[in-house]
């Protein structure tokens, strides 16, 4: 087991695990090495085996606390060339532990992956999105990949093999409770149009102006970090940015938000960006296709009225 070479993938998030197969299969082409997936249960394993993994190892862990599987995973990947791990928080923790154990590099939040001259070359952002950089690593190379960076591959013609491996977990941490986040039913990342609000709004009551506009546009309301984390006016899964959600809607209508890079990195792949801000020097206007310099309290009601439902 310890002498296996090849490309390894893991994510506890099943959709993301499947997406990881897409870059893994490209690396397989480039390196001529098999793809081994690690999975937490038989159902997830069967899905990965059916979508291009040559082999799937089902980790039979005592606790299922993904962060505690670092030593076990490092032991299993043996002579790996490339290890791709889903870029959830749990995945990032695990990946850093595995990389330390293997004395390997680790690219965080890789946006693209390729092999050049026997090295893994991955692109990622720096300075909260101000810059993009390319990192190269000799093998073994590790990268975390955020959700939705790659599409899931089509079903494979032949299914890979599935095997169970006993796995030891980190017993030093006791997990005493898990409370799922109340998602309030909205997945901001799948909305086609977003009206995004910032600190230009003076009170929570005023948000109805954005809600009405979003209703007319058949979109959703998102926000900056301060609106969610500090004011608690909107749930945290609605805030956009480097530490929040990354979205790519057709229309991103930014109202009363300044457009700092930490926020914009989550929205800058939108097709059309519109800004409404009273300060004509606000950075958001540089990032906007269209904009109105004006008071949102005057502009929003007019805009909502002018859009035909």
């Amino acid at each position, binding site marked *: 087991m310890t002498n296996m070479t090849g490309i390894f993938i893991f994510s506890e998030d099943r959709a993301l695990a499947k997406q990881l197969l897409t870059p893994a299969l490209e690396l397989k082409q480039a390196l001529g090495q098999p793809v081994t997936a690690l999975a937490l249960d038989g159902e997830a394993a069967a899905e990965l085996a059916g979508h291009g993994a040559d082999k799937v190892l089902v980790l039979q862990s005592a606790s299922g606390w993904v962060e505690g599987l670092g030593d076990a995973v490092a032991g299993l990947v043996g002579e790996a060339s490339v290890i791709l791990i889903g870029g959830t928080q749990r995945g990032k923790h695990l*990946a850093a532990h595995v*990389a330390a154990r293997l004395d390997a590099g*680790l690219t965080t939040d890789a946006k693209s992956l390729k092999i050049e001259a026997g090295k893994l070359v991955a692109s990622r952002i720096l300075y909260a999105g101000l810059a993009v950089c390319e990192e190269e690593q000799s093998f073994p190379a590790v990268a975390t990949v955020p959700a939705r960076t790659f599409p899931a591959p089509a079903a494979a013609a032949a299914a890979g093999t599935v095997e169970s491996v006993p796995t030891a977990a980190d017993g030093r941490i*006791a997990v005493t409770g898990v*409370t799922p986040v109340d998602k309030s039913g909205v997945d901001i990342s799948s909305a086609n149009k977003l009206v995004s609000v910032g600190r230009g709004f003076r009170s929570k009551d005023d948000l109805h102006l954005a809600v009405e506009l979003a209703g007319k546009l058949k979109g959703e309301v998102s926000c900056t970090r301060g609106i969610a984390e500090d004011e608690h006016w909107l749930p945290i899964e609605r805030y956009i940015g480097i530490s929040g959600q990354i979205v790519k809607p057709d229309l991103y209508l930014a109202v009363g938000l300044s457009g700092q890079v930490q926020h914009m990195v989550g929205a800058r792949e939108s097709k059309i960006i*519109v800004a409404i801000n009273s300060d004509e020097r606000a950075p958001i*206007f540089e990032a906007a296709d269209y904009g109105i310099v004006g008071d949102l309290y005057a502009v929003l009601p007019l*805009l909502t009225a*002018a859009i035909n439902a």
Partner: protein
Amino acid sequence: MPKFLVLYKWTLDEQDIKVKSDDLSLDASRAKGKISDFDRNAIEEAAAIVEKQGGSVEALSYGTPTVKQSLKDVLSRGVDKAYWIGDASAETADAAVTAKVLAAAIRKIGPYDFILTGEGSSDQFNQQTAPRLAALLGLPCLSFVHKLEVDGAKASVARKLADCTELATVTGPAVISVLSDINKPRIPGLKQVLGAAKKPSEEIALGSLGLAAEDLQPKASRRSVKGFVMTRKNVIYKDAPADAVAKLVSSLAGEGLI
């Protein structure tokens, strides 16, 4: 009484970094240093716990020789003593190098009950230091913590993950990374800043840590850095609201969005 060590990074303030329009290179000549944002939360958390329950807080940073400029700031935030490792190797260090240097330093100056750091640094945001360090030191690690309670050797935390809040406990020594919403870092007043001058700081020579040259070679090396530029239409209406709205509506219709 808990003995804390807080790890912090002295970074450039990204707000002052400009992208040069000709070759997309970064111009950091006007950027000042700062204690990386989330590390300020880690410092605040340890300092607040110690102010309430007793114990001690020390801080440690590995950076280029400019890291020395951070001492006054870090010591004015409730830290009792600061250690610093200033070396040119930090210029190219990746998370692997950083963790090895910090681990070696902690073996020298430790042990500590709880080693705290921010979730990630504001420049590279690798989010690797805490788990890597824990793996190298053989300690348990709790990451992404937004509530921390320390009772003797035991820490109880709430971790905030994308889809859940997770409660966990660990007995120190342990490594903990914190999120920005765990607290609001203090803004040091004149008294704290003056007091900082009297607090001890100690340089740790990289050469004294017994690391091999190989350990200082990054495993992930940066081969290019390019400023991100967005090309947008930048059609901005400055008319009275009614006229501006009419123009925007026709632009949005032209894009097929309404």
